[in-house]
């Protein structure tokens, strides 16, 4: 307790000339659980582990599933804003990892894929964190499928957010005509950039995750 007081004293001393900008990172990861892509969920665990190892105290992380309608807090599997103290942050990361393991064991597939809803939800979450660097990771084949009543064909806002599509696997139809795959990615890039995103990026090889987070 005494140590904390000493720390507060020093922090107060430094507060007079503190940098008002936020230097923390916030990452929102969308995990597609629809159709055949549900088989890839185990790879999502690897990405989450990488993020847990890379994120620093004070950063935020949330993992949400992409279902038929994903614009909901209920779809968030695990979320945490890591404590400023490294020891507490490590404990939070352990709990987070366990939550993710439980999710990968017990997830169920969905009929449709609402990536746009997940993006809107992620954007709201990231804005609330007030982090300086915001990133949405989309772990999906980027094939959006909506039911007839779900409305997502309107402009969305992703201002100052980096959007990274990870492990965008090719569908059977993409193999028949690769232009479908390239066109799909191009369409998403246009939509994301039109939404004001800072950057759009695709990382298919999960061995090269070091570019996922950027200062």
């Amino acid at each position, binding site marked *: 307790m005494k140590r904390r007081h000493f720390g507060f004293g020093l922090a107060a001393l430094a507060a007079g000339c503190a940098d008002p900008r936020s230097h923390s990172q916030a990452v929102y990861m969308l995990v597609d659980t629809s159709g055949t892509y549900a088989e890839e969920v185990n790879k999502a665990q690897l990405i989450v582990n990488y993020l847990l190892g890379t994120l*620093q105290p004070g950063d935020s992380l949330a993992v949400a599933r992409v279902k038929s309608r994903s614009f909901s807090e209920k779809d968030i599997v695990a979320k945490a804003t890591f404590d400023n103290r490294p020891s507490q942050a490590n404990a939070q990361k352990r709990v987070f990892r366990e939550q993710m393991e439980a999710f990968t064991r017990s997830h169920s597939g969905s009929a449709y894929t609402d990536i746009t809803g997940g993006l809107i939800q992620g954007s709201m979450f990231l804005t609330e964190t007030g982090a300086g660097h915001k990133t949405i990771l989309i772990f999906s084949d980027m094939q959006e499928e909506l039911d007839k009543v779900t409305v997502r064909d309107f402009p969305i806002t992703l201002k100052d957010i980096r959007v990274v599509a990870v492990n965008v696997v090719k569908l059977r139809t993409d193999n028949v005509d690769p232009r479908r795959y390239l066109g799909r990615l191009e369409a998403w890039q246009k939509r994301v950039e039109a939404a004001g995103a800072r950057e759009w990026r695709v990382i298919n090889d999960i061995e090269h995750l070091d570019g996922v987070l950027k200062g």
Partner: protein
Amino acid sequence: MMESPFWMIVPGNAALSALVWFVIAMPFLYAARKPVHELLHAVGVLAGGPLRSSSRWLLGAAHDMRERNRQVLLAHGREEAGQQIAREFERVSLLVTRDLEGYPALQRRLLDEITRVEEDYKKCGEVPPPPPDWIDAINAVANVKSGGNELVTRLLEEINRSIKDIHEKTLAEYRRAYEERHSILDGFMPFWRSLDKTLAQADRKMTSLTDRAAAIDAQMARFEQIVSKTERAEHALTVSALTQFFVATLVIVVAAGGALINFKLIALPMSEMVGAGDYLTASLRTSEVAALVIIFVEATMGLFLMETLRITHLFPKIHALSDPMRKRMLWIAFTLLLTLAGIEAALALMRDMLIADKQALMQSLAATAHAAAATDSWLARIPTIGQIVLGFILPFALAFVAIPLESFIASARTVGGAVLVMVMRLLAVSLRLAGSFVRQLARVLVTLYDILIVLPLLLERLVRDRRAPTPTPALSGFEAVERSS
């Protein structure tokens, strides 16, 4: 077809065009000769004058600065030599108080021992009593002729027997007396030894005093040289300051390395106190600044500690404090330093724990089966113990930086002043050279101008020669301008 530039009188032939232009311009150049000469001369003076003036000013300033540096250096040297002499006198005073204070006792002891030796010597001189006076009577009796008289013979035999008895008794007495004297002489040895030891001790003390006196003589000679401001003293002081400067710089660099290690030890655990997510600038964490602050506070406490111990003399106010107040301050500085050292040791331990925790987390995230094989081994504890010990020792080690810091500050004034004087002199020489160059350049340009208009000048000369038959020595353009002005 390409159009020729407007100035080309002969299309397609630039050289010929230029020549034509030159011929056209030549009369105008001749007409403008005097103003152009004056202009070039004025430009030379205008540019060269300030350069030369600046050079003179810089040389004067360098001279003044050197003189001021010399005064400061000598004053500093005088103060230092004075302090050293005072310290030597203190040592001599201490020596006199400690050693020569016991000199009367030593003298009394020596006198006692000498008196005792004398008394014993006198005792040795006592001889056994001389034989009795009746020996002459016995000699007379012994010379008596018995003539076969039985009575006389018996009498003489009786006398002989008695004398033998007496002789044996006397001899025994004599031997006993000598034995006594020998035993007294034997008893002299410890006294001689003690006397020898006491004298050696006195000699040693006197030698030490002589050495101190020689040291004071040397310091006094140095002090006199400084007071009389000799070149030798100045040179010696400058060399001494340079040596001090480089040695102090070296030690400070080494100490900076120690401070860096110290910083590495406490920067990570400080994030447990002030948080790891706060930044003071884009790349500077608050925890790192807090760690730096701790190190600087430790160095400051070390500085105060050295100051209150009167090892350094950076703060005159601390030296002006009364002794009880100074001691109080000493204990406060020491307590704070000790507390900070304890905190650092704890932080070093925490750093180790945090790293171990992070490592365990990373291993669990990597999902590899790296069991912590040597975690319970005593070998694994060595780095932890090493970090704790380093965390505790480094603040105290940093405290000693105050000594080289003082030397650095004191010698930096001399070294910095000498370097500044050298730079100013170099600058002055450069400016002077530049000024001379500009003036010479103006002369060269004037001559070049005259070469350009050599034809009109030749014509002018011919006309002048025809008008005035007596030839006058031709003046160069520059000389002509100078003379006319």
